[in-house]
């Protein structure tokens, strides 16, 4: 059976991400398992869990990024969310009582960055705003609850976070108007 070649020659050696992930999966799993085993063997604080989480974050954000909606909004919000979770874990497992103060600072800093990223490319980013909206809603609810429960002069980061989330949310409603409503309809459709 003679085959007449009708396709261009393809450069050898170019590997796709799936192959790269298949290769890297095992070193990552080995390192994660090693961290947990060493941690368990030498006892002490549970740093192994934090190491595993860091590996997971690296995997999700860098090596195996989102297949749909990999954009500046989703990635910036994801980074802030993961960093916050990491800080909370460090606080619980290693160094205590700093996260409650630091996490809202990280969140509102991240929010500022996201807002800048959003409004500097409004035409395109208005179609990517769901992660930002969700983040604002979670920030509003979270900081609202903390402010109700934790009456402390040191809770200013929560006041800033709450104000910023509300302002950012409202600014989008005002600036985008009908587009905001349409965007939510798309994102929450169940058809």
């Amino acid at each position, binding site marked *: *059976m*003679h*085959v*007449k*070649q*009708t*396709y*261009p*020659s*393809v450069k*050898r050696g170019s*590997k*796709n*991400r*799936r*192959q790269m*992930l*298949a290769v890297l999966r095992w070193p990552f799993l080995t390192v994660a398992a090693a961290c947990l085993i060493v941690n368990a063997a030498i006892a002490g604080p549970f740093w192994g869990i934090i190491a595993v989480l860091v590996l997971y974050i690296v995997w999700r954000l860098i090596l*195996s*990024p*989102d*297949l*749909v*909606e*990999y*954009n500046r909004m989703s990635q910036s919000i994801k980074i802030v969310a993961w960093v916050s979770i990491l800080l909370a874990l460090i606080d619980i497992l290693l160094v205590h009582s700093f996260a409650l103060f630091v996490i809202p600072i990280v969140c509102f800093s991240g929010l500022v960055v996201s807002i800048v990223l959003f409004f500097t490319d409004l*035409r*395109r*980013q208005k*179609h*990517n705003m*769901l992660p930002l909206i969700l983040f604002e809603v979670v920030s509003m609810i979270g900081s609202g609850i903390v402010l109700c429960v934790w009456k402390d002069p040191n809770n200013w980061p929560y006041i800033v976070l709450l104000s910023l989330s509300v302002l950012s949310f409202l600014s989008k409603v005002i600036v985008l108007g009908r*587009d905001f409503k*349409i965007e939510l309809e*798309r*994102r*929450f*459709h*169940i*058809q």
Partner: protein
Amino acid sequence: MKKTTKPEFPVFLQELTEQDCALVDAFFSEFDLYFLLSKAERKLFRLDFEAAIMLLYGQGVPMQEILSRLALSNLGGFYARPSTVWFPLDDAAKIYPISMEHGRQLVFRLAIYLKEDIIPELLQMALSFTVKRFPSFATTLKKGIFWHYLDAVKKHFPIEEEHDVPCQPIKVSLSGSQPFRLMYYKNRISAEFFHVLTDGTGALIFLKALVSEYLRLCGVTASKSDIWNVNDTPINEEFENAFVKVEKAETGSGFMDKPAAQMNGRMVRRKPCRLLHFKMDSAELYKTAKEHGGTVTAYLLMQMLYACQAATDELTGDIHIQVPVNMRKFYPSKTVRNFSMYCGVRVPIEEIGGKQELIANINAQLAEKSAKDKMREMITAAVNLVSSIRVIPLVIKQPIAKMVYGFLGEKIYTTTLSNLGVVNMPKEFDEHVIGMDFCLGAQMTNRLACTIITCSGISTFSISKMTDDPTFEEKMYQLLTNDGITVEVEGSEYYAR
């Protein structure tokens, strides 16, 4: 697209007569009105127009004729309006983005071969003029809370010169990234589609409209045909989720089945590792199929069963070939979204015997399993399933769907045979179109996938291979030639080596 703008357009303008120059100036005077796009995007369009004008002028086409072919009115108001439309995924498409992984995406490819080499400048213009007629193609995949959807995108859709392995996953993650790619290589125009966008029939409608537009730009027009006019206004029916219009059956069934025997051969990492096209005279193939007492699909299924048997070391178990069924034949619809279901022809390996019994068995199975009622039951099952999980957030249903799809998806089949049927082109295109092919992309479990399409009197049976093992295609070739069919084999190199 690599620009070939030498000589530069201003230099080109200086060489024109005053009259032609005035025509070009008048042409571009209203250019910006047609593009509510960023400056960079507008520039890309402008470069496309300039390249096309220079090319056609170089071919000796009078300037008035050039500007008439490239008239800005061909863009309609598509790029002049902001993108507000969006499309929920149809019931068949919902699984595709959910089950997608890095390097795993259901992509298929349709290609058309012309007599002359493709002119990229005109193909680019043809795409810009055609895409507006297919608003569900001018979209980008987005993720909602409960389902993915297609969001309209207004941008410059570029063509590419083909240089990679066919049917590779299409990057749909970035803002505005399109779920299809259009490529050219020598005399071939190839369009690859993420299945989320359309099925074979929808893709064929798109490609025919595109080629018709390309040929119009080359100066060939068809008087009357079933090809969509790219300047017609799109209507809702063309983009509907046609599954929901099918009246529900009392029971829904047809998805679950037992695992099928798989062909042997080590799966390569780079899939598909080879494409093969068996080109046959369609009349000869039809005649041979009739002599065997079946349709072309049944006849090819029979030969595939023999070839599958040869390509597996299994002595027991079933060979199960998936056959997509176009629902439009039961429920007429103009939709270019997915509107196909599938049935399967299942034969135990030990029962693969004489040709007569086998083709009778295949005919009986096809008649029973692809009947309207069976398809209606399957659609009902699909619609019910989608409906029952519609309020579960994607973050929850995605991992579950991935797992279920991984277990059931391909494992219940040995391979696939998708028959797109006979493609009719207008008479005026006879001199220009020499054939078509159709290929399925990477499979995760099945060792290969087969398709057939007939155009310009040539039936092209294509095989997308996932292993180096050549048994299947060699057996197929032997079986077809033994039946007196002349087979010309074209294809790619082995990419895995």
